[in-house]
Structures are given as C-alpha cells and as structure tokens.
C-alpha cells in the first residue's frame, strides 16, 4: 500500500515569494493533517481536514497561509508571502477518519522549506 506522498521534497525561496506544497494521502483516508516542524522542535498542527471540510485551522497564520482539499483527496498548502520564520519542514499526515475509535496517523516524508 502506497504511503502519504508529498512534493516537492525541498524548496528554497526568497522572502516575500510564494510557495505551494502538495500532499496525496493514503487511498481511502478521510482525515488529512498539515504540521509545521521548525528545526529542533516537535511538529505543530497547522490545519486538519475531514474529507473536504476544515476541522481545525486555529493555528494556521491565515494572513499568509492557506490550504485546500477541494475533492477530499489531495491537498495543497500555500504560503504567500513567505517570511524567514517559515523555514521548516511541512509534514502531511492522513488517517482513516472513522468515528468512535482510534485512527492512526501516517506521515509523509515532508517538504523542507528554506526561506532566504
């Protein structure tokens, strides 16, 4: 079974530029998460989707970050404009999203963003 796919794996941009990351979850997984992992820290949730609806985006800096999951499968996370402090690894995770029980989250390899 294919895992969570992310692209690109690495991205270097200048500050104030825009960037987009793509995630393809495991087939059949209804819940999709984007986490930001700053170097030396644990991941922090940015946004959670259930199918194509947003469950939690309370920690997403909405003035510059946006995310969508239009058809309830793939997702795109965008930063516009980027700041130096956005340098991090952006992790995508997915889970089955079945109500009433534990759903393991499976992580992708991440996209390492460097903002110069």
């Amino acid at each position, binding site marked *: 079974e294919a*895992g969570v796919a992310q692209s690109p794996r690495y991205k270097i941009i200048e500050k104030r530029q825009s960037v987009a990351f793509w995630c393809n979850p495991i087939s059949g997984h*209804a*819940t999709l*998460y984007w*986490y930001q992992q700053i170097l*030396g*820290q*644990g*991941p*922090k*949730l940015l946004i*959670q989707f*259930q199918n194509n609806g947003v*469950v*939690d985006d309370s920690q997403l800096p909405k003035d510059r970050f946006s995310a969508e999951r239009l058809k309830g499968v793939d997702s795109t996370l965008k930063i516009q404009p980027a700041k130096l402090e956005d340098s991090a690894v952006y*992790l995508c*995770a997915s*889970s089955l*999203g*079945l*109500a*009433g*029980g*534990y*759903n*393991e*989250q499976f*992580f*992708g*390899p*991440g996209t390492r963003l460097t903002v110069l």
Partner: protein
Amino acid sequence: AQTVTQSQPEMSVQEAETVTLSCTYDTSENNYYLFWYKQPPSRQMILVIRQEAYKQQNATENRFSVNFQKAAKSFSLKISDSQLGDTAMYFCAFMKGLNNAGNMLTFGGGTRLMVKP
C-alpha cells in the same frame, strides 16, 4: 490546552544496552492516548508505541516498552537491546480521546538518541 515536555534534548547509549527517554504532559482530559514516534535522520515519522489512558497495563512492542504513570502525568519509553538503527529523534505525543473521526497530535520537543557501536 495540552502540553508535552521532553526534558532530555539528547541522549546516547551503547549498542545492546537499555535506555529510557522521559516525557511529561499536562491535560485536563480524562480520555486520551499517548504515543512515541521515531523520526530517523531525513526520514519520515513512524509510530513506535501507543498507550490508551484508560489502560493500566503498560504497552509493549518488542524491544520498546513504556512506563505510564497517569497520576504523575509521566510517560517514559524504554528501549532494550539498543540497535544502531534506533538512532533517531524520538517524539512523545498526546491525542485527546476520540468522540469524532480524528484528533490532532500535540508533540513534545523531541529527544535525539544516538546509539554508539
């Protein structure tokens, strides 16, 4: 809000020895899950072990076991017979108990473990 604290930024252990990684957490929830995740260098995060808060018995997965002290809000990971492949960042994580289809993970800051030959 939940917080997860890992007080050991770095640890090292000799191959075949045993090492224990510490984690404490703070929550007002009664139903929750605790996890240890492994993140090898430049590789993706994988689940090592899971503990349900309602279970008194400590979880075990082969060489990995936990010491779950609910009253003390402590959740340590013991790795027995350490192997070179255990070298990685280890993250302790918390998830609220589920009444719906999915909940976020709250991670600690991580412990970098180096297994020495």
